[in-house]
């Protein structure tokens, strides 16, 4: 392991995978904060949560990076206890679906602790969830519960979409955030390479503009930000359409003014989320817009998310289940040019075909 924990100099601009960014931030957290520890099923094994904790147990020892039994609820309760006495736990779930076993501790305890006890105590901690997608993840390995968690006051929910978002947010969260944070990472992003820069303005623990444009606003989360950026590139080349892509980034505490300003400018809105639309992120974006600027839209918004069904395993159905690049492009063009926009759509059938680096089983 040559990973820099300490203040080793890094090139101002470099290429770093999402998993690499996670590993760097985990490493730095352990190096810079004696109270940080990482626990979760398999954090110390050779796969190291898809490469995001590999080698850290050897480097920092088993007191600080350790495997746990199958005990999602217990582990979360243990983390709360540790946080209450000054440690900073980082816990992992290799699929967000498994955090559902810890719902009681996350929602009834962690989310409430500070408030319910009159501000006298808090449990700052980072809970990392990985959302699965494709290669037959099926109904129980594919859920993306950002709206569920963001529904409960007391939780901070972020969805880093790039390596830069991780590099900018995680150190701040770990060093300073006063309460429990749920970070929802996406498995399809893990193996992607991103350009990162230490000179650019840091991504806030909130919303930011990922690409500027004047014709249509695309509000996206997680891997859908990457999808939206690809689509924006396509519509620019194919039709000269300039899409503004906003990475919501914080699900619990977005910058709604930023979103409203953009829609004021464009009058057109596409929302692309990684989960179901019903009562979800897309619904919340519309609620906020309705409250703040009910007449900003020139047409009803378009929403992209998972079909209203549990995730099917069959590839043929999975391809229909998630919005494809084709649909994202079509949604953007239809907003700007109308349904009969007449622009040829990309031929690619499923998004995961573009993310070739991801191949099963896990």
């Amino acid at each position, binding site marked *: 392991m040559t990973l820099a924990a300490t203040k080793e100099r890094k090139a101002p601009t470099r290429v770093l995978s999402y998993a690499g960014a996670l590993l760097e931030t985990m490493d730095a957290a352990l190096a810079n904060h004696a109270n940080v520890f990482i626990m979760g*099923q*398999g954090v110390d*094994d*050779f*796969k190291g949560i898809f490469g995001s904790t590999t080698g850290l147990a050897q480097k920092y020892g088993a007191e600080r990076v350790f*495997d*746990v*039994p*199958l*005990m*999602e*609820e*217990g582990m979360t309760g243990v983390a709360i206890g540790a946080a209450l006495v000054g440690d900073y736990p980082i816990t992992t779930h290799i699929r967000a*679906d*498994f955090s*559902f*076993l810890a719902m009681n501790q996350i929602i009834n305890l962690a989310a409430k602790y500070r408030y319910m006890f009159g501000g006298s105590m808090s449990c700052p901690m980072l809970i990392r969830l990985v959302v699965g997608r494709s*290669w*037959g*993840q*099926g*109904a*129980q*390995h594919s859920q993306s519960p950002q709206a569920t968690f963001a529904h409960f006051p007391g939780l901070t929910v972020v969805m880093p979409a790039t390596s830069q978002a991780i590099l900018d947010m995680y150190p701040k969260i770990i060093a300073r955030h006063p309460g429990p944070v749920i970070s929802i990472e996406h498995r399809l992003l893990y193996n992607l390479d991103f350009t990162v820069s230490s000179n650019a303005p840091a991504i806030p623990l909130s919303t930011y503009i990922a690409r500027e444009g004047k014709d249509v606003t695309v509000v996206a989360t997680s891997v859908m930000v990457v999808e939206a950026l690809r689509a924006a590139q396509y519509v620019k080349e194919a039709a000269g359409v300039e899409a503004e892509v906003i990475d919501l980034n914080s699900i619990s505490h977005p910058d709604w003014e930023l979103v409203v300003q953009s829609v004021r400018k464009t009058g057109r809105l596409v929302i692309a989320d990684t989960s179901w639309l019903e009562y979800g992120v897309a619904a919340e974006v519309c609620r906020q817009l309705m409250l703040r600027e009910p007449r900003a839209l020139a047409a009803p918004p378009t929403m992209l998310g998972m*079909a*209203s*069904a*549990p995730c*099917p*395993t*069959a*590839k*043929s*159905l999975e391809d*229909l*289940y998630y919005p494809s690049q084709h649909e994202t492009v079509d949604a953007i063009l239809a907003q700007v040019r109308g349904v009969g926009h007449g622009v040829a759509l990309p031929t690619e059938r499923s998004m995961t075909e573009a993310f070739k680096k991801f191949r*099963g*089983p*896990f």
Partner: protein
Amino acid sequence: MGLIASPRFILYHQPSKAPQGAAEPLESKDLANSDELYRRLFRTTLLIRLVEERVIELYPSDRIQSPVHLSIGQEAVAVGVCDALRADDLVFATYRSHGFYLAKGGRLDRMFAELYGRIGGGAKGKAGSMHLSAPEVGLMGSSAVVASTIPHAVGAAMSFKRQGSDRIAVAVFGDGATEEGVYHESINFASLMKVPVLFVCEDNGLAVHSHRHIRQSYRLQKHAEIYGIASCRVDEGWDMLAIREASLAAVAHVRAGRPFLLEIATSRYMEHVGVGEDFHFQYRDRAAVDAWKARDPLVVDKALTEALRPELEREIEAAVAFAERSPAPGRDELLTDII
């Protein structure tokens, strides 16, 4: 072969009535026909192995686009347990259930179609390998969330009792699953309610890459004992006959109205998920698996393996062909069967 071991029993409750069928002619008849019995169990065990070996061959072709958790090395557990059950008894199992699916009598062609994500699969391709089911033969829905089906078996058993039926339910789970809270809740409740449920722990000593001793501070049988649940451990988990014999006794106990825990030592030859071996990662010892293989009837009894192989391979080819012919589910399936 015939490695009938003497499983270690811990019986805390004498069954309230004589267990149905226990020590009855069934057993002596079996002994008389032990060759035939051995051959029958061997055949199913070999079928499971050859099926999974076929999955390994097919996997690089990307026809099976779904995680697969192979049971190679563990097949005898499924075969020995299921052979001791009645057709109308129910089994609730896990993501590692190719073996239980076949041992309980699930159709092979539908299984391959399910793995392929085709309409001819038991769940029309919506389930894949991790969620196999065949309710028509008593294999209920398998879950990929560890330990999550254990209480389902308890509930089904409770209802059987309520309905005055003498069917039983079986919860199949790995050693790791016993660490989950719901396992403890389930065995406590089963014991309190005296429901006819058989808990079967497939103890391969591993949860993904973590060895049991770093995960568990308890011994499973001792632990069950404090809940008042009788148990038996079979160390010779390669031996279908020994497992079957222990299962028959366990099932008799359960059918008489008490929960029972059967802990069966076994060995996972392949990686946790996927179709490769994983010894090169050095988190476990190849020698332990090799020692197991040296006693595995499917490895040792080459004569019978080769005698049965041609017909089993024909069966498998037909099932694969069925899957290949079966169409992929179309858009009309996307939003069906939701509520």
